[in-house]
């Protein structure tokens, strides 16, 4: 409200700023500024080692953000992503320690588990008409319990070969980066160029209208949450490869971090507006932020606080953009 008032009073001064906000998404600007801060405060920031590190630590977040963005686009939300990441991470580390010859089977099992959770979420939301926030919070809580039941403390071990997933690369460039590019490429293509993708936008914009237009809204929603669960499982597996063991709480911040990343990237919490690529930038923003804060020895307390402040700033910018439109 007050923004409207101020901007109309100081019309001439704020006009270019308005246009800038409309054209460039704040997330790119923020990412750019954050990288500048990193470069100026830490001489080691641009070293190959550190860049590699940033990419690898952001990868699970970036993978999971795709699922979260899809859920948000349908005017839903997926709070079970974090627990599914923990679950699959723990299953992988737990089973691989005892059955190092069954890596492929274990990977498949993790993926099936994640997708199944998504399927249940999707079914509950689309067919039983349960509120996405509540149902994914509930399934997430249950899964967190199951995860702690499997492994109460960090432990387990992954195989040497499995470790290579996050370590190997083409020269200095980790394969993870290529994987992300391909995943986001496919995702964006599906979202923008297929009937399924456009149905997601239509459902988030106006579910009744989409239904009346012959869209199988229930099916689309079930598929969206299944994809989200599937990707959360991939993120959990990648984390297992990266840390080499299982941690029942490793996914804890990911549910909220993926929401922050998606919203930072311009996805509306009300559905129907947004895309994947902004979420990718958002995920990297969060990854780089913790790197920068860690390198500068900022206490974890402030890291939490800064994440919260950034989420508020992202929401404020989102509202401002809407007001300008």
């Amino acid at each position, binding site marked *: 409200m007050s923004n409207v008032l101020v901007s109309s009073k100081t019309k001439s001064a704020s006009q270019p700023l308005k246009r800038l906000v409309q054209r460039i998404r704040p997330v790119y600007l923020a990412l750019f500024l954050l990288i500048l801060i990193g470069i100026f405060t830490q001489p080691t920031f641009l070293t190959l080692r550190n860049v590699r590190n940033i990419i690898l630590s952001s990868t699970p977040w970036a993978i999971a953000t795709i699922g979260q963005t899809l859920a948000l686009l349908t005017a839903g939300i997926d709070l079970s992503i974090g627990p599914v990441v923990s679950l699959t991470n723990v299953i992988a580390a737990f089973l691989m320690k005892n059955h190092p010859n069954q890596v492929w089977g274990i990977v498949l099992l993790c993926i099936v588990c994640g997708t199944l959770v998504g399927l249940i979420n999707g079914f509950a939301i689309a067919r039983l008409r349960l509120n996405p926030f509540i149902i994914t919070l509930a399934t997430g809580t249950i899964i967190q319990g199951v995860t702690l039941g499997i492994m109460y403390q960090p432990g387990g071990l992954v195989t040497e070969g499995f470790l290579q997933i996050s370590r190997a690369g083409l020269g200095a460039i980790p394969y993870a980066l290529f994987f992300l590019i391909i995943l986001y490429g496919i995702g964006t293509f599906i979202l923008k160029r297929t009937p399924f993708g456009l149905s997601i936008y239509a459902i988030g914009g106006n579910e009744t209208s989409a239904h*009346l*237009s*012959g869209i199988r809204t229930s099916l689309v929603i079930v598929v969206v949450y299944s994809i989200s669960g599937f990707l959360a499982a991939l993120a959990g597996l990648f984390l297992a490869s990266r840390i080499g063991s299982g941690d029942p709480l490793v996914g804890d911040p990911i549910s909220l971090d993926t929401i922050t990343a998606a919203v930072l990237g311009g996805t509306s919490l009300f559905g129907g507006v947004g895309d994947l690529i902004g979420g990718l930038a958002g995920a990297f923003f969060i990854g780089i932020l913790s790197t920068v804060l860690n390198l500068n020895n900022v206490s974890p307390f402030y890291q939490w606080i800064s994440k919260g402040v950034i989420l508020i700033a992202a929401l404020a910018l989102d509202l401002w953009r809407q007001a300008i439109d």
Partner: protein
Amino acid sequence: MTISLSSRYNLNMSESTIGPYLEMRSITKDFPGVRALDSVTITVDRAEVRALVGENGAGKSTLIKILSGAYRTDQGEIWLESNKTEIYSPLRALALGISTIYQEFNLVPQLNVAENIMLGQVPAKWGVINTKEVHQKAKEVLQQLGIELNTYQIVGKLTVAQQQIVEIAKALARNLQILIMDEPTAALNQVEIGNLFNVIRALKKRGVTVLYISHRLSEIFEIADSVTVLKDGKLVDTKVIQELSRDDVVRMMIGRQLTDYFPPKDTLGEGTVLRVRNLCLENRLFDINLDVFTGEILGIAGLEGQGQVELVQSIVGVIKRDSGDIFRNGNQVQIEAPLDAMNAGIGYIPDDRKQDGLVLIRSVNENITLPSLRNRQKNLFFIDNKLERGFVNQLIDKLSIKLTSRSQLVKGLSGGNQQKVVLAKWLGIQPQVLVVAEPTRGIDVGSKSEIHHLMRDLARQGVGILMVSSELPEILGMSDRIVVMSRGRLVAEMPGDGASEEAIMAAATKDILTQETTYQPENTL
């Protein structure tokens, strides 16, 4: 607050002879690519009811948004009581006593009538609300409007008409000088409209100026003192209502004589395209049988809320019917969901385009392609871009939808153009049956006529059209055959030619007036 208000009011009365109460001088407003208002000047007196009319896109909405502080004018000045005034925000407009009643109300549904009316100025002592005083004050305000309404009722449970009155009362409780009403009767029935007009007359007596936007000319002639006509962002003229006839207003609005309101009817084809047998819906629809012939427009008439909407919704699978068979070209079809209806070649244009018909926050392109996405795929998976562009452009041309680009968001279009987008969606699946509810609700006469012609063209190509409308002229002008609904039953059928408003109304009300002696039209709210 109230004291300063009334003293100010008295002061105005003595000064009101000096000049007009409200002056908007040479108002100009540009949007990217469009000049929405071009040097428009209007002056309105105190206690005058001024109708603002014009086709969609004429600039009415922009003008009232400038007055209500939602937009700022690029050029021009606003004068209130001979003082130059800046209305830089909606709050500023409210402080000046300018209130707007939009179609979506700004009420808190969980609170009761009195709390809503007094919201923001609840009388309280030591932080404790004086409930008695709240209700007493709210009642006083309602009395000023000549309305009796239980102030303890929860607003969310009131009818739309009652909520509208609460909204007006809320404005009146806060220094109301100018009331802007945008299509206030769109969702009201005849009795409720009569009530609203009484309220407007009461406001007029209290010195409130009313700016009234409506597409319904008959209402304007009933309630307005004067009419301002806008066209393409320019002022056509302002005239006292007594100097005008309906035809004058229409001519001023569209800039030409509208000789044929409705396209000429045509001879019917052979065979039924849609047959409905023994359709029932518990307590709402009773054994409905109807046939739609090839190339026919079948009008369903009746008072509002007699089951017309439920009927069409159960035909196209939006609501689940208890029993009843549906046949297409003589073959029975299973319709359990809108998708089934679509696959059976039935298109459905819902009565509420914003709620049900469109995805407002997405583009024209996406909205038009939504029902037929799978018809233009390159392979199993992807959409053929080129094919889609041609498809959408062709429909936009055919329906002459006015827009800046295909990627323009639907919410930025005028009502008439939005309705054309809904129509384009369904033309895209090339339906053989079109089920249409209130096809021209709330849109201007020009677009209305265009949509009527489009419907007739479709019928000529053999499409069977089932049309529900609560506007009798539309039923009479468009239908080849008319059925009348009353209390969930089809009570009369008549040919379109030779039918009269009187005959339809007689059939529509007969059942209600004779059989149900307990039925009382609501005179008070």
